[in-house]
């Protein structure tokens, strides 16, 4: 049913992804002072980018969406595009790569991504842009909304599920709001296309019918074939091809700079620490006594 309807109108979806350090155990390497050892840590498609790619795949299964994946970065960032294609069965891959893009802060990055999305939708406008919640290394969560604003797309953040009404050209989305000191809230929103959506880490899609699940495995098989020759789907754009103003991108276009990086000084010890040898059962016994004492005091009060 849903698939038949999808023939009514097409849906163009873009996903903005990022190549990030692989923080999973076994891949990540830390220096002895607790900081990330970047040289020893491999790079992969960021976990939030992977979730955004899965959200786009849902649009493919449900609505037959055409998917384009884009990233800004050096040539090696095409690894992120390839991994995202495997998840989403993307129809095209776009790499925005130019030396002058280097060192960009979020505003200057958004300028490139905006130009890329406009370029991507040359013949038919992009209806939904997805991006991840935040990068695991930068962790600002600003690039998505800033790109949305520059595009003039309404921004929906922390989206945990969505559906599209193709006839009305509407998106219906649920988002999770977490504010410190208040209970969480789930909100349901409606917005006309086009929209820009960042996907919450808790996003999961459900395919309810057999036909949807069949469609899903068909696209998954297709994705596995496509990634073998992912370069056929890949287009690389430099600054000139994107038509961006050099003054607005990279270091030149960044309002902010990193002034200094320092180790966070250790605060003065707040407590007088008693050291216990974990293999000494007598000492552990005293710890257990202390625990019971605190638990009992609570019961009494």
């Amino acid at each position, binding site marked *: 049913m849903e698939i038949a309807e999808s023939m009514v109108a097409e849906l163009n979806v873009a996903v903005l992804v990022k190549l990030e350090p692989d923080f999973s155990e076994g891949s990540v390497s830390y220096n002895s002072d607790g900081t990330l050892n970047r040289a020893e840590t491999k790079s992969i498609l960021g976990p939030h980018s992977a979730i955004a790619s899965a959200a786009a795949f849902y649009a493919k299964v449900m609505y037959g969406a055409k998917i384009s994946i884009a990233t800004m970065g050096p040539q090696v960032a095409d690894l992120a595009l390839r991994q995202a294609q495997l998840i989403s069965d993307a129809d095209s891959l776009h790499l925005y790569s130019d030396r002058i893009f280097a060192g960009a802060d979020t505003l200057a990055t958004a300028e490139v991504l905006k130009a890329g999305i406009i370029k991507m939708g040359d013949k038919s406008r992009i209806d939904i842009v997805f991006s991840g919640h935040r990068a695991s290394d930068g962790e600002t969560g600003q690039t998505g909304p800033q790109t949305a604003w520059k595009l003039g797309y309404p921004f929906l953040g922390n989206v945990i599920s969505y559906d599209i009404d193709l006839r009305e050209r509407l998106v219906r989305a649920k988002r999770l709001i*977490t*504010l410190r000191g208040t209970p969480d*809230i789930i909100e349901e929103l409606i917005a006309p296309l086009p929209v820009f959506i960042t996907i919450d880490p808790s996003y999961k899609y459900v395919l309810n019918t057999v036909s949807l699940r069949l469609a899903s495995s068909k696209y998954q098989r297709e994705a596995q074939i496509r990634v073998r020759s992912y370069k056929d789907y890949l287009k690389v754009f430099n600054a000139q091809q994107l038509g961006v103003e050099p003054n607005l991108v990279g270091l030149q276009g960044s309002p902010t700079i990193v002034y200094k990086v320092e180790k966070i000084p250790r605060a003065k010890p707040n407590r007088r620490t008693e050291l216990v040898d*974990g293999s000494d059962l007598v000492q552990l016994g005293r710890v257990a006594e202390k625990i019971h004492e605190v638990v009992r005091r609570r019961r009494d009060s």
Partner: protein
Amino acid sequence: MKSENQTNENRFAENYYYHLYVVVEHLDGKLIPVSLEMLGEARRIMDNFNSRYNSNEKVVAVVLGNNIKELCEELIFYGADVVIYAEDQSLEYPVNLIDTKVVSQIARDNACVSKFSPEYSESFKKPRYMFFSADSIGRHLSATVLAELESGLASDINKLVIEDLEIKHEHKTKGQLIKYEKILEMYRPDFSGFLWTTILCLDNRHPANLREYHPQACSIIPGVFAPLRRDPARDGAIIKFNAKIEDADRIVKIVSRQVIESSVDFDSHKTVVSFGRGIKDAPEANIRSLVQLAKEMDAEVGISLPISKRAYPVSDAIASLYMIPDRVIGTSGRKIAPALYLATGISGAVQHIEGMKEAGFVIAINVDTDSPIKDECDIFIKGRMEDVLPALIEQLKTQKQILEVSET
């Protein structure tokens, strides 16, 4: 030794950007804690600014909503000199599109400024500084507002300083040493919690690419700064802003809102045990032991942030129950204050310490006596989780039997 050129440029910037605007958040008629925390910090750094530079610049709280007149007074009591508020039915709950439009209008509005600082009403272009909250509303709102205002933004800040700085930068100053005045140094802890990065938002003084970047803006981590004590004797100006809202600004509609009560309960349990990356050698077994320990102690289970990223091979049952964002203790999660806190395999990154430092009694189990958690605990048990947890559980059981016997 300033060159004439520099001085002129400084005056140039001086003529357009004033005040510190704080965009506050509220929910169901109440200001949320981070709003008061931001005002507290804003007050502290502007008091300092006022005595060092200029006594005319103010802390301006910005608040959007519907029927929020009462909140405005509270904002004054908590440190604002001025409150600018906008009311509309479509502003009742936060929606990024319309909020960005209205906050940006306020940030550019001279008429408001003329009411509380007439001396700047002609020249005012935008605020000098802006604060937002680094939560699911403020993080995105700060990003879109600063995209609209075309200036720089730093996220997740936990320390702020205003200073004059001598800057030499290839792009900002063409490699020349130039003095920038009244610069907001924005400190953000990185993802590891061990490095502190200072971000500055600076005008381009490069002759080939001159550009002014104001406001200097940031989002502030909730739970970091202390609010001021509420002072009903404080006085300030409350100004209503008539926002220009068009139909196109209302196209995103909220159809329902549902409050979710968390199944994780750190508040009524007076003991909390938690685990971090130290589980790595035997994740499943270690988590199971820890859960058993939690049962012995009648404790809720918490985790450090890296655990919520599920980078460990464990069963779905364990992962879906314990490796969830709801359980994160620290600046990215909950701030807790149990009578007893027991942290296992957690090194103690600043973000985590922020979340547990109010605990009554703290025990840490860790292999590394150099880890920062050692300075934040009352008892430090040196050892691997694999060895210490089962032994400690045994000791607890034995003690319990002794206690039960002695009580009867």
